[in-house]
């Protein structure tokens, strides 16, 4: 959704090295901003740092731990103990004359670059699959005819790197770049069929922020059914026609190789492999956490202070989500009921979406992430940055998405309005909480429209494939 998007679209065709120039310049831009981090004061913005991702809280947790207290004492830190051991020592390292937390910023920059490279890997695979499927369906005549396919990997990576949300998160010292990296790692592992990697990414992402647990479904689909593809029906039609005309078909993907049954083969072996690795990794994470928290209440304390904190929405300080306002208003004896209602919202959507979009697991992952960023208890712009860049992986399929300009203006307007409303409420005192919450509602509405339009554009794309399938026409005749 960045403005550089269109630029990329054209320029990528000409020179592949353009990608690296733009990626490097984004890194430079970050480094320049980091040197002004003290003045920009981004790390105290509620849009950027939530109670879960704020570096200040992490530094506090580290300090408590150094003073041999539980890092979770005093309800300051709510993140993972592993992150504490990784980033904690860096929060106290200072170079004189440089902004504080310089090393942490550099870690976040590296995390962003890694995410972008992994996204590019996912995109390359998806692009190849798109080309292959298009050829199988007879939409592209020759293997060389690839001019119409956009390099979605490069676009997604650059959208991730140049998205203002990502930049703000990286410079604003929120830990969401690392959470995003874990999610992208899981997807990358699943797309490239490196099962241990996928399991590791998923376990880490779940450990860091709980909500990526719902990505288990798309990851299993990816491993079991393979990459995104048009619905199976289309291939079956194509195959019927082709076998009617000729006896043999050319080399084909897994879907086309499969026998003309109505079902795809599900690779149980890979999935079992994945489950095994996931268990192994979770065991590792548990043991490490147990070791690091052995004197401070152990795992029970950790689950209570991290997952419990996420699920029970204890911190009601304002953020760009919609929960804080509601739970500040709700009566105490209804609180548990509404907690269940709000969290079940996400779970309700999992199954229908999984059934409808099971032929496109990557897209399903994007939709899940968008929905979880909408219904999260402590959302930040880092979550939006993640799903927006995943969205860019599907530029080929979503080329005809409606309301793109409207959504772009909406996102832009809301993200500019948010600091103004916050200033009006907190600093000037002429506004009140409703101002900021109204902005949050507007943001949620735009996100909903975005998700709905993306899904409908994808479904329309599948329908359009069916329509312009030349074999389909032939059959009709």
């Amino acid at each position, binding site marked *: 959704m960045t403005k550089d998007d269109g630029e990329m679209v054209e320029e990528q065709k000409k020179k592949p090295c353009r990608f690296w120039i733009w990626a490097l310049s984004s890194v430079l831009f970050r480094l320049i901003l980091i040197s002004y981090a003290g003045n920009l*004061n981004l790390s105290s913005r509620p849009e950027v740092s939530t109670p879960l991702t704020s570096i200040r809280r992490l530094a506090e947790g580290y300090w408590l731990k150094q003073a041999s207290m539980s890092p979770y004492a005093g309800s300051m830190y709510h993140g993972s103990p592993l992150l504490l051991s990784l980033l904690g020592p860096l929060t106290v390292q200072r170079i004189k004359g440089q902004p504080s937390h310089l090393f942490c910023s550099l870690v976040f920059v590296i995390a962003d670059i890694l995410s972008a490279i992994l996204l590019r890997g996912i995109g390359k695979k998806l692009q190849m699959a798109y080309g292959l499927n298009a050829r199988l369906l007879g939409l592209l005549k020759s293997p060389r005819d690839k001019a119409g396919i956009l390099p979605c990997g490069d676009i997604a990576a650059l959208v991730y790197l140049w998205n203002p949300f990502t930049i703000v998160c990286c410079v604003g010292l929120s830990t969401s770049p690392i959470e995003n990296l874990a999610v992208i790692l899981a997807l990358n592992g699943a797309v490239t069929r490196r099962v241990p990697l996928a399991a590791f990414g998923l376990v880490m992402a779940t450990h860091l922020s709980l909500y990526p647990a719902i990505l288990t479904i798309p990851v299993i689909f990816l491993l079991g059914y393979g990459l995104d593809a048009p619905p199976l029906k289309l291939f079956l039609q194509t195959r019927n026609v082709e076998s009617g005309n000729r006896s043999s078909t050319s080399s084909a993907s897994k879907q086309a190789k499969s026998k003309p049954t109505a079902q795809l083969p599900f690779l149980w072996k890979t999935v079992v492999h994945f489950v095994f690795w996931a268990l192994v990794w979770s065991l590792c994470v548990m043991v490490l956490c147990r070791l690091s928290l052995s004197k401070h209440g152990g795992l029970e304390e950790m689950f209570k202070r991290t997952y419990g904190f996420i699920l029970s929405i204890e911190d009601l300080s304002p953020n760009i989500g919609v929960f804080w306002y509601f739970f500040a208003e709700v009566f105490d004896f209804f609180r548990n009921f509404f907690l269940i209602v709000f969290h079940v919202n996400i779970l309700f959507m999992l199954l229908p979406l999984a059934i409808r979009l099971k032929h496109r697991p990557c897209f399903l992952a994007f939709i899940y992430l968008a929905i979880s960023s909408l219904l999260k208890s402590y959302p930040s712009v880092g979550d939006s940055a993640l799903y927006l860049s995943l969205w860019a992986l599907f530029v080929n399929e979503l*080329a*005809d998405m409606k309301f793109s*300009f409207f959504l772009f203006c909406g996102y832009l307007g809301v993200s500019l309005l948010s600091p103004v409303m916050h200033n009006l409420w907190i600093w000037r005192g002429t506004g009140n909480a409703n101002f900021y919450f109204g902005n949050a509602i507007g943001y949620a509405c735009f996100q909903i429209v975005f998700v709905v339009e993306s899904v409908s554009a994808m479904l329309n794309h599948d329908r359009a494939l069916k329509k312009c399938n030349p074999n389909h026409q032939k059959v009709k005749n």
Partner: protein
Amino acid sequence: MATENRDKEEEEVKTDDGSPKIKPRPIVQLGIFLISHSPVFSVVFSAAGVMALLLLPLLAKNTYISENALMPGSARSMLSHRDVSDGSKLVNDIKSFRLNHEGQGVEVQRLIGNYMLEMGAEVSYQKFQPEGNHFHPLHFFSGPASYTNLGNVSCAAYGVNVAGIIRAPRGDGKESIVLVTPYDFLNGGDYEALSLGIASSLFSLLARVTWLSKDIIWLVADSRYGDYRPVAAWLTEYHTPSFEVSDLSKCDELNPSDSFRRAGTVAAALVVKVDGRSERFEDTLSIYAEASNGQMPNLDLINVVNYLAVHRQGFYVKVEKVVSLLSSSWLKTVGEIFEAVGKVARSLNPDWKFGIPAADYLEGSATLASSLYSQALGIPTGPHGAFRDYQVDAITLKVSPRFPPDSKGRQHEFCLRGAQLLEGTIRSVNNLLEKFHQSFFLYLLTSPGKFISVGVYMIAFALLVAPLPMVAASLYIDGCTTQNPAENLKSWKWLDAAKQVFALHLLGFIVTLLPYLICQVPGEQSPTNRSIIWATTSSSLLLITFVTVPGCSPFSSRLHGTNWAVLKSVTISAAFIGLCLMSIINFATAEIGALLLVPMCLMVRPIRPDLRSRRVKSLVRALCSMVLVTIGFPVMFFAISKGLIGEGLVGLGLGGEFWTWLESLWAWKSATYLYIGMVHLPCWLLCLCILFHPS
């Protein structure tokens, strides 16, 4: 069988895609209707917006005191003649002291401090430095006083504030009320000394009374470097104590044992100034309320002062107005028309009471114009502005006596009335249990007793900007459908235009920050020179942008250039977002900006086809857009408004004036400066690009 099934599927798909049989929902229909008739609606809405702005003086409501706890004027004044004599004695002492002693010392401050001590107050002295006009771009985005200006302190120029604190007998020391009297210790006149007399009479009373529940701080601000700076320095010290020892404390005749003294959070502040002689028969009280960026104190504070001044003390209360508008004939005509319409309406139904006399209308609109102007400028109209940065409600009361400064008897009576007014106000604020929150923060005044609330004046703005999204949508649809429909990515055509808009906004951002670098240019530069440097660097940057970013320039070939309809659509969207943002930051700026920007953005079209067609309609349209774009240039608008006031400026002198004006804007951290640089200028450049678009 199989083919039949597929046929069925085909039909289903058709209906899914939206066959013409399915009617769109009513709201969608309404949207389509508005978008398809956007030219008509944009004219109607814009005219209605201007009309609503002219109607505002009619829609003003009478002020009322919203917070019940205030109870102004319910207690009898306890101020005695003895208190006033004490005050007069202080004034006379200062006068005689200044006659006998020349020079820069802090003896006068010490004299005042001793008076305060005698009354039983705690006294502290505070030193501060005058501050230059430093433009630092990042300070716009940071909160108040998040930066400190330590280093190169010179003992040559500094001021000393005196502050006395009376601890409230009934309070817990957590709240306070501040009374500020700016006084120039070097060359303050007799009238200025009178404000000290008023404050000291009041202070001696408040030191005795038993009803105080909030501490009273009397700050005598050293106004030799302007009124604002000493108050701001004192407030910074009050709220954000610095633990480093300033170099200023070394160059000093005051004993360093005086530490800075504080009371609780400031509930309200009153700045009292006695200004030259009143032009009217009565003593005049002028109320100044505008703080930085169009922020206003709570209306209840103004109401209390206004109520007490009018109903108890018999002052003539006024707020600032644009005097030149009072004699304007067109406004008078408008007022007469409204009066006539009001009369007709009343004859139809006696309950419709919206007409006001033409003279009242004229008065109201002159005040409204002044209110809009000072809010739009974003520069505080007095020392009270410093308080607003800390969320404290404050106003400046400028009192003008009707007698010459040397008449003793009148002076006593004047001091009595002034002190009684302040006493009543402080007593009301003293009753307050919470912060001021009941009444309005967002309003415009049309007279001391009449206001327009945010709900009313927003209508005018909303009507004015309503055409923007409609026209943007209709242009977007036009731009996307007229081209060949088979083209891929047709829903992403706006990206090219967005790139251009983004490039020019980035340019605007850089141009906005350029003065920071220009100020660093060594040597004493005159404003004219600086404005020339600024203009040349900006225009060369613009040329660079046009050359480097393909498709950005209006002079590029048709192949590279984007479709002008899409470009205009994106421009209008950007203008809409910018104006809406600005209307929340500072409404008055957005309103004035919208009056300039909206007609320009709506009218502008490529003039080449218009000139080629040689039809009267297109020629008039081209002329209109030319005129609007000319007026829309910020420098041109500045020159025109200067010309209207009567200071015609041409040539380089204009550049210098403009630079000085902008310098004052950024020195006061006015958001208007950012608006001009980052919203208005880019949109104007984009309109220029559309105007000369090669289509």
